[in-house]
Each structure stands twice: as structure tokens, then as C-alpha cells.
């Protein structure tokens, strides 16, 4: 279980908190969606949970472990799929995956099999020995995902894993994530695709200005919101229709 208690984050020179006094519990084997407009604080929250940035205040734990005390254990426990393609463009898909798998202590035949199985599941086996630089956006997204799950993490963080990909790739990615969840992986993901989140997540939280403005099961949130037919209606009703451009 992930327990977040009154976590806040204010970047240097910023006027406002990106995450403000946020408390949340995410249960094991959930698919939890963090939804919100641009600049709402979704990526900041995920970055804090993945130890990429330090919170200004507050505490959090993953399976009762904290980074201060169990840094390496926690890193072994989680996987993160960053928003950008965190891959070496001049290496092949297989070489990239072999390297990142090795960083989790995986090696030899077991690692090779794990890579090949994952590539096969995501329809990339025949491109295993092609350089990442030659891949389409959707293919890169899938390799990006595999690089994060080779060590079978208990908790997987995904920051907009389906952004900029075609419907087919998106479908394969979502299906694969659901399979992982079935096998016991807790998934925390951010997305702007509200229809996708509505169908995919067991629970969502809508964040705005660094605070959770509502959370619950998608269907329940739709029912509770007057005149809402889907999660997008709920979202717009709670966050408004004004543009959220940030510089």
C-alpha cells in the first residue's frame, strides 16, 4: 500500500505549490489514475513517489518502506515509465532492455527470456535488434514500458504512457498493463485520456492546483456528478473549462 501524508512541493522560484498538503492511500493491486489539467501536479507527485524529487514537506511510504531508510529495496520494488522516451536511440531495443534489466541485477538467460517474452507480448520481437532511433512513437512507448517492468515491480508508476501513440499501440499497452495488474502489480498512472482512464482504472483522483478535488471509482464519480455522462464531464465540472497554459 502507498501512503501519502500531507505531501507538499514548491519548486525554487515558484509562486505556488505544485503539490499542496496532499494525502492519499493507494491500495495493493489497484489501477489508480491521477487525472488533472496541465500543471495540476500529477507528474510532480509521481516524481516524488519515485524519488526523483524531494518533497518540501510531508511523508510517504510504499509497502511501509521509505527512501530514507530503504532506498535500494524501494527502487527494486517500483518501476517507472517516464513521460519521455528514456532510451538510448543508437542502441537496439534488445540492448536497451538488456542494459536497464542489468541495472536491476538481472542477468544471463533469465534476462534474455524476460526481454524476448515482453517484446513478444507487445508485438516488438521482430524489431528487437533494430535501433530505437528508427522506431515510431508507439514502438518507443512500448519499449519504454518494457524497460520498467523487466524486474517485475510490485508498484508501477506510469506518466502518460499512451500519449502520442496510435489506437493500436494504445490498446496493446493498456492490455499489457491490465495483464500485469492481474498478476498483482499495483499501477499508478497519469493521463489526459479520460475515456481510457474511465475504462482502465479501478479508482481515480482528480487533482487541480496540487490538491485532490475528488477521488473514487470512475462510475461512482460519474453517478455522483449532476448531469455527467462520463469522466470527462466530471473532470470539466470540477476543474472548469478555462485554459491551463503554463510557462
Amino acid at each position: 500500500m502507498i501512503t501519502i501524508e500531507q505531501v507538499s512541493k514548491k519548486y525554487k522560484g515558484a509562486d505556488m505549490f505544485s503539490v499542496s498538503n496532499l494525502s492519499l492511500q493507494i491500495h495493493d493491486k489497484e489501477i489508480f489514475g491521477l487525472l488533472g489539467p496541465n500543471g495540476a501536479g500529477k507528474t510532480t507527485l509521481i516524481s516524488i513517489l519515485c524519488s526523483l524529487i524531494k518533497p518540501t514537506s510531508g511523508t510517504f511510504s510504499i509497502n511501509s518502506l521509505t527512501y530514507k531508510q530503504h532506498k535500494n529495496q524501494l527502487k527494486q520494488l517500483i518501476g517507472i515509465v517516464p513521460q519521455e522516451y528514456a532510451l538510448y536511440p543508437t542502441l537496439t531495443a534488445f540492448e536497451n532492455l538488456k542494459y536497464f534489466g542489468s541495472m536491476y541485477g538481472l542477468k544471463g538467460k533469465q534476462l534474455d527470456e524476460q526481454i524476448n517474452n515482453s517484446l513478444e507480448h507487445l508485438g516488438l520481437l521482430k524489431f528487437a535488434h533494430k535501433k530505437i532511433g528508427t522506431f515510431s512513437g508507439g514502438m518507443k512507448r512500448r519499449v519504454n514500458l518494457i524497460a520498467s517492468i523487466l524486474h517485475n515491480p510490485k508498484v508501477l508508476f506510469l506518466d502518460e504512457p499512451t500519449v502520442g501513440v496510435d489506437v493500436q499501440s494504445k490498446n496493446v499497452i493498456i492490455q499489457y498493463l491490465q495483464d500485469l495488474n492481474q498478476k498483482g502489480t499495483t499501477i499508478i498512472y497519469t493521463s489526459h485520456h479520460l475515456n481510457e482512464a474511465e475504462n482502465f482504472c479501478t479508482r481515480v483522483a482528480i487533482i487541480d492546483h496540487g490538491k485532490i478535488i475528488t477521488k473514487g471509482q470512475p462510475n461512482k464519480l460519474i453517478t455522483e456528478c449532476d448531469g455527467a455522462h462520463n469522466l470527462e464531464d466530471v473532470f470539466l465540472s470540477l476543474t472548469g473549462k478555462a485554459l491551463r497554459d503554463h510557462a
Partner: protein
Amino acid sequence: MHKLLASTYKEFLLLSRDIGGIAILFIMPLVLIVTITLIQDSTFKTVTDVTIPILVVDNDKDNVSTTILNGLKDSNAFEIITKSHETEAKDLVFKGKYQLAIVIPDGLTTGLQSKIDQNVEELLAKFSLEENTKKENTVIEQKEVRLYFDPATQLSFKSSVKNGIDKMISKIETQSIYQAFQEQISDDPSEKIFETDSFITFKEVLPENKQEDYIPNSVQHNVPAWTLFAIFFIIVPLSINIVKEKSQGTFVRLRTNPVSYATVLGGKTIIYLIVCLIQFILMLLVGVYLFPAIGLPTLDVSGRLPLLFIVAFFAGLAAIGLGLLLGTIAKTQEQSAPFGATLVVILAAMGGVWVPVFIMPKIMQTLSHISPMNWGLNAFYDVFLRNGTLLDLLPEIALLLLFFIITTGIAIIYNEKKNAV
């Protein structure tokens, strides 16, 4: 260890896929060392092989000017072009057409002879060897050999020419004095009263190598200096490599992986150290095989290879430490590349790669001691020129190793502090 090996292999793959980068890493240092050695060698040869055309205006046309002209010709350093007017010669030199014009004044020989005769007669009269009583001395006008240099001429060239001509004139004066005494004392011109050969001579004693005098050439001087310069340039591609990792997101992924920054840097260190050593081997091969083929002296590495590799290894480590630190601190390639290149040039200048440390101002001599290139250069000179042993190299290689440890340590601590959670 497994993670370090995987990181090393990844760095190898990244480097091997960048053909342009490899070409730059290996070919540019070779081009640098060949170009610089050719230039330095020709500078070295300006007083031996290469002849520089100079203008001479001979208004004397007598013994002294003939002796000066013969001296200039015999030096094999100059091609004498005679002009009849000083103004013409001066204009040509000041326009940069020639490096130097020498104007020998009218009546130099007769003037010098008269002055010396006058002095000798006066001296002998004082010792009462001269029969005549005191004569009224006529005033002999001083003569001036005028030198015109192209304003762009380097000071070192000016100094060597001035010294050479000064030495020639002194010799002529001395011989004329001996001649005058000879004529006054003896009636027989064939009688040799004075031994005019120099009494004091000098000999340069060189370090012995295998019981033989070892004469260093320009290549022995240049190759270590410029090899070191090339080795230190590794900080540019290395820092770019690290900055690229940060900008392409792979570093973010690595930060979430259970791998230390030291391991990530370890992989880079191993591969880039191998690159440094390959660069070094290529430069030695160029010195040994290519240089003689293009008319340069051969680089003599006989019996020195193990020590040379030890120096190259530690110099490479020091360069890599600096590259790791720069790459860790820099945020963009625009920061790391120009800064890295400029830093190498500054360290090279401070370290004595271009100008020997002993002729630098005091403050720069002191500062040179903190340049890792100075430590590396001294270590190379110990091996190449001073026949140093491993024991002689220990202080320098210890400093280079310490520099690597400190710079890498700062890089790791900086990264930990910056990304502390």
C-alpha cells in the same frame, strides 16, 4: 560488478555506434600532433636547415662587411638578398615582405681599423713600446649597424638574430685588435704572436641512455606535450556524453534504478580510459613510423614503453575525472563543450605545453603546479628526456590519481546532494 560491466558494455556500444565521434576522437589528435610537430620542427630548424630570405644593404663593401656577410651565409639560416638603398630595404621589411634587413654603414672597416690602431698605439705608448711621443688623436665617428625587423617578427627570432650579429661583430673587433698588436709588435706578418682561438669552450652534457649520450630532438619534446593535450580533450566528448544522458531521459530512468552514480560513472571511466590509451598508442605509432616518413625525427620509445603507458594511464584518469565532474555539473551541451575545450587550453597553457614553465612569470609558475597537465608533462619528460625511473614518476602519477579521485568524488557528492530525496 555485473552492473559495472553492463554499464561499460553500454558505453562501448554507444561509442562504437558513433562513427563520426570515433573518427574525431582518434583522428583529430593525430592531425593535431602531426601539424604541431611539423610547425615546431620547422621553427627549430630556422637556425639550421630552413633559410630565411633577408635583405642586406652593404655600404661598407670592405673586409668587415664581407666577414659579416660570410658569417650570415655560413650560418645556413639566411638567404642573402642585396639591396643598394636603405630606404628600399626598410620599406620592404616594414611591409612584411621580409623578416629582416641589415644595413652596414659606409666606412665600417676603415673606421674600425682606425679606431683599433689608435687604441693600440695609445696603449703601447703608455708602456713606452712606441717610439713616437704622444700624438694628437683624431675623433673617429662611431659606426652603427642598423637592423630592421618586420613588426610581426617574434621576439625570440629578433633576439637570436641580434645575438648572432653582436657575436660576429665582437669576433671581428677582437681579431682586428689582435691584428693591430701583431702589426705594431712584429715586423714579420707571418709570425704568430697570439693564439686567437677561444680559450673557453663549452660542452652540453646530456643524460645518458644505455651508456650513450642521448640527444633529445624536437619530436621528443613535442609528442609528450601534445599527446597530453589530446588526452585531456577527452573531457569534451565525455562531458557531452553525460549531459546527453540527462537530456534524453535515460539518466532519469537510471536514478530510479537500484544502481549507484559511481557505477554509472565507472562504466564511462573504463571505456574512455581505453579510448585515451588507444589515442596514446596511435600517437606513438605516428611518432615512430609516420614522422620519419615525412621528414621529421623519429620518436624514440625504446625501453620506455611500460613507463610511458603508466603515465598515459594516470593522465587519462585525471582527464576523465575532470570530464565526469564537468558533465555532472553542466546542464546543457552548450555549457559543457565550450567550457571543456577552453578549460583544456587554459590547463595546457598553465601546464607548460606551449611555453616552458621556467620562462613564465612567477605567478604563472606557481599556478602551473596546480595544472594536472603540468604533472603529466613532467612525468612524460621524466621518461622521454630525463631517463626517469618509476620511482621518479611516483610524485606526478600520485598527483594525477589524486586529481581523478577528487574530481570524481566531487561529481558523485554533487549528484547525490542535487538529487537527494
